[in-house]
């Protein structure tokens, strides 16, 4: 450091200039690798799924039958993914709202840190451990409680997903509430509002977009979860009958990919159809995530 410091900036030796330049290209190259990873994934999915769209067009998304070699219809998987995620979201939303209010507005800083630490640990529990919990407890409980034929249902998968994304959603929601400026609270309290009124009438409306964003990011994660869902969803490629019957087996896109991909890997219409499913999932998750991030950003600007 000392050695370098002796050179005044205007007459750096030529070699150093070059070195500096070369190094910049190294960093730029590494950045390019990163961009290629992300962009390449998307292009790859489009490229691989092109044949099936050429063959079936948009009917691919509307078809209800998936028979390898005969028909490839993605509707049951699309429907399953959507329903499972929507249900998980319904379960998580009220809980996340209530607990986030409490953590951010009523807890002392020490206990808040403690709860947040617990949540962060919880967010890191591997999917396969949730899968094991689902197989050996949740699916049996759901079967007994609702008197079902079998415990591998849409509802089981939703509950499991709800538990899985709860920590993420809570952490982000709580962040959103904390980021409401302290003056708002002070003013409200100064006007004679109670703590509860401040929390629900002042802080909550301000934090709402952030909380929406948090939930959307959680949903994005839930939609892509493979292992835990695959073990408890029942893997039946059929739209439940009637359509709102959440206590029947169904199939989600990641679970379908996890179960069938090994057989088709690399080529053929079957593979292309699976990749098209993957592309669909990718686009859905990206959209949800994009909107979620927009919400989070709007919060930080206001």
């Amino acid at each position, binding site marked *: 450091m000392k050695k370098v410091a002796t050179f005044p900036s205007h007459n*750096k030796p030529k070699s150093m200039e070059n070195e500096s330049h070369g190094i910049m290209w190294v960093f*730029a190259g*590494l950045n390019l690798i990163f961009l290629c990873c992300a962009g390449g994934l998307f292009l790859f999915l489009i490229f691989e799924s092109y044949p099936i769209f050429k063959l079936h067009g948009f009917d691919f998304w509307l078809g209800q039958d998936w028979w390898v070699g005969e028909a490839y219809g993605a509707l049951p998987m699309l429907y399953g993914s959507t329903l499972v995620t929507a249900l998980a979201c319904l379960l998580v939303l009220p809980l996340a709202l209530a607990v986030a209010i*409490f953590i951010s507005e009523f807890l002392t800083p020490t206990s808040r840190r403690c709860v947040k630490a617990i949540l962060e640990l919880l967010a*890191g529990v591997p999917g396969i451990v949730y899968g094991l919990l689902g197989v050996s407890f949740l699916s049996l409980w759901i079967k007994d409680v609702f008197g079902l034929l079998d415990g591998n249902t849409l509802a089981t998968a939703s509950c499991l997903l709800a538990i899985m994304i709860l920590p993420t959603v809570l952490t982000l929601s709580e962040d959103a509430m904390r980021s409401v400026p302290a003056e708002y609270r002070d003013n409200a309290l100064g006007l004679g509002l109670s703590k509860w009124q401040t929390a629900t009438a002042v802080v909550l409306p301000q934090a709402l977009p952030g909380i929406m964003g948090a939930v959307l990011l959680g949903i994005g994660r839930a939609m892509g979860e*493979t292992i835990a869902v695959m073990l408890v969803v029942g893997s039946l490629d059929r739209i439940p009958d009637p359509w709102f019957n959440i206590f029947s087996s169904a199939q989600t896109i990641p679970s379908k990919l996890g179960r069938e991909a090994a057989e088709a890997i690399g080529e053929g219409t079957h593979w292309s159809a699976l990749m098209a499913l993957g592309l669909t999932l990718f686009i859905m998750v990206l959209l949800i995530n994009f909107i979620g*991030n927009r919400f989070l950003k709007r919060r930080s600007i206001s």
Partner: protein
Amino acid sequence: MNPATFEKGMVFFLTILTLLVSSLLLIILATVFAKGLPALHSGFLIEASENFGREGGIIYQLMGTLILMTGAVLISLPVALGSVIYQTQYLKSETGKEICRQFAQMLNATPTILFGLVGYLFFGVYLETGVSWVTGSLILAVMILPTLQVSIREAIEALPDQYKDAGMALGLSPWSQIKTIIIPQCYYGIITGVFLGLARAAGETAAIMFAATTFSGIHLPESFSDPVPTLQTHMLVLTQEAANPEALAQAWSAGLVLLSLVFFLTVMAWILRSRLKMEAEL
């Protein structure tokens, strides 16, 4: 009802809810411990598995998981470090920065099974690394890239401006600044990222189940083209056999080990992050 009582009631209700949610972790932990400990005999960590995983230990599965996640971090770290340095130190255009941010978010949101499938086809088939630990590490490396980037970026952005100003005043070239100021000052941030990345890689199953793992026949990889057994896929196989009490007990014990590993790495990351905070406040 009088509003004060109502409020007290609501706050009480929320307290209960929060306690319930927090106890969720304790319930999960307690369950894994209660189910995992009984089968966790003294040799569990140092014995090979036998009889299709129903007996014996998990040493090679554990080693496989460690190899994959370490490989992933070794591959991912230079790319993450380089790209973040480029984005924060060299890249001037706001549009460029925004594009990089969007791409990072995209990568972070991508369902992991897609990494597995696309990664296998790209690395395993086109680049001919086959079903091997190398393929697995490469796939996981791409997967944890955003995790590492976030930690490194946080650390770099938390650097006080004076440091940079001082560096500039000394006439340091950008590279010298990076070498003598940024990397040394950020290394707790970098290592926090490393631990978080390791934790994320250790918990991942879907991304590696097609591309890097084997059920039996390999203990430790002896070449680049060998797959490895991993804790995650070992658990997956045993979980599907849940009616067999022996297999289930082994699955729980493996789960206990995996969970402990992930928790250990996460807690390490926290400790380092708190050091980072302390330094930033100095």
